[in-house]
């Protein structure tokens, strides 16, 4: 294992976060805070509790998940796309480093950045809404698994994208709608039975449900089912990345 190479890629990617602090940290925290102010404090004060949870507190896991999903994808996709765009990918591909090590460096940094952001958003949320975390270790585990899974997904998008615009297509057109419709702002019980069933086709429902359970011990679907769904998504991304490196898709002719 070329640990030095993994560390080099990891630190290089992390340094981008500090260099683009406004975009990487400040912007998602401010936009999530606005959600807390608008939906939590302003409108939320007129909405009754959901499952016995204050509405402002209820939306915290969903909003946190929204940020973590989009930032994981964005960080990882940009991280691997940028060397392809500038041509510097040649030195990564010609270095004595395996694909597992490349993925560890890029995805590790992307997931780490998302975790830091998630924790910062959680701290910010505590200023606006009454927050409780019933299962802190499970909460961290869900956060980590989600960050890693969607960073892997972002890595795939970064390899697939052949222009900057494509980096935004999946997060904006797929992930954000799925998150909004995945129970970020409501419980599935509030939907008509038909739409409840349709919602179960949305994988983000399972992520938010499991994550919300770690906060308030209440979930739309069983925690075990949520974990299986994350494991399935994680495995799919890993298999897809393995295929990319095995075939050399878009990285090695």
């Amino acid at each position, binding site marked *: 294992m070329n640990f030095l190479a993994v560390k080099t890629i990891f630190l290089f990617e992390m340094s981008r976060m500090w*260099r683009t602090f406004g975009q990487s940290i400040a912007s998602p925290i401010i936009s999530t805070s606005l959600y807390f102010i608008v939906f939590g404090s302003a409108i939320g004060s007129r909405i009754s509790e959901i499952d016995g949870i204050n509405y402002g507190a209820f939306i915290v896991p969903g909003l946190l998940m929204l940020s973590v999903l989009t930032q994981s994808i964005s960080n990882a996709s940009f991280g691997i796309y940028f*060397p392809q765009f500038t*041509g510097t990918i040649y030195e990564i591909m010609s270095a004595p480093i395996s694909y597992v090590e490349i993925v560890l460096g890029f995805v590790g940094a992307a997931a780490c950045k998302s975790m830091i952001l998630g924790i910062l958003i959680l701290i910010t949320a505590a200023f606006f809404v009454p927050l409780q975390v019933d299962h802190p270790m499970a909460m961290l585990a869900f956060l980590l698994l989600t960050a890693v899974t969607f960073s892997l997904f972002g890595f795939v998008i970064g390899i697939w994208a052949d222009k900057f615009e494509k980096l935004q297509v999946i997060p904006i057109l797929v992930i954000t709608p799925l998150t909004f419709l995945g129970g970020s702002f409501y419980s599935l019980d509030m939907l008509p039975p038909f739409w409840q069933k349709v919602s179960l086709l949305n994988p983000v429902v399972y992520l938010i449900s499991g994550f919300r359970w770690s906060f308030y011990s209440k979930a739309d679907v069983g925690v075990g089912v949520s974990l299986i769904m994350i494991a399935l998504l994680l495995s799919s991304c890993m298999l897809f990345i393995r295929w990319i490196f095995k075939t050399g898709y878009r990285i090695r002719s």
Partner: protein
Amino acid sequence: MVMISISNVSKSYKGGFEALKKVNLRIQQGELFALLGPNGAGKTTLISIICGLSRATSGAIQVGGFDIVSDYRQTRQLIGLVPQEISLSIFETVWDAVSFTRGLFGCSPNPDYIERLLKDLALWDKKDNLLMTLSGGMKRRVMIAKALSHEPKVLFLDEPTAGVDVELRQEMWKVVHRLRESGVTIILTTHYIEEAEDMADRIGVIHHGEIILVEEKDKLMKNLGTKQIEICLQEPDTVDVEAFKDFELKFDKSEMILTYDPREKPTEVEDFFAKLTQQGISYTDVKSRHSSLEEIFVKLVRDA
């Protein structure tokens, strides 16, 4: 000792285009090998395969005795690559960019070595500058610094002087000379064939994906080169061209240029001057020159 061994390497693409056709080549440790060929001949494809950027369709390559596929960590550790295109992460400083490459190759930080390298390449005073602020020539030198950051034993220079001004080019060649003296094996591709003529130990010519010639430079110049005698005529208008029809001659204003192969016609010069005397032609100057590598290269590619 053979440093790079290429055996029957072919590369074909989906559309059926064959970029390399059963290429065989041995490059000795410590030599400076110039790989010449017209655009699209397969030079960069071959280099890309050796460095791990591309995959051969068939054949085998060993670097330092290691197979580039099964022992890729060992082979890539030995290799430094300066690609044709300037590809840099422009938001980094020179120091960070070079250190990053060293780390990628699994080498622990060595600030003394990086300092020496940057000084050798006249980049030391720019070490804290962002790459985006550097000139094209300096960026090219950063590319070389990155390729040397992990102290490779083999250096591939894929047209490293393209777009570099004469002064910088000469500085870069001094660095290459020093590397060669230190025992680094250098494989060079260049469009400036006079550079290959000046520096290379051996020349390989690739055309349409095939190696059409590999020869020591001196032997190549001797064996494939022709000679020319230029006679500066005193009265060019009085020359009877018909009398010289047995010679390969060209007339250029007041000059008469004889081209001949000394191996095929050893008495050509003697015969020519005898004819000049016989015809009573007087001349003011005589110049002799050997054909350049460029002329040999053009002839080789044209005849291939």
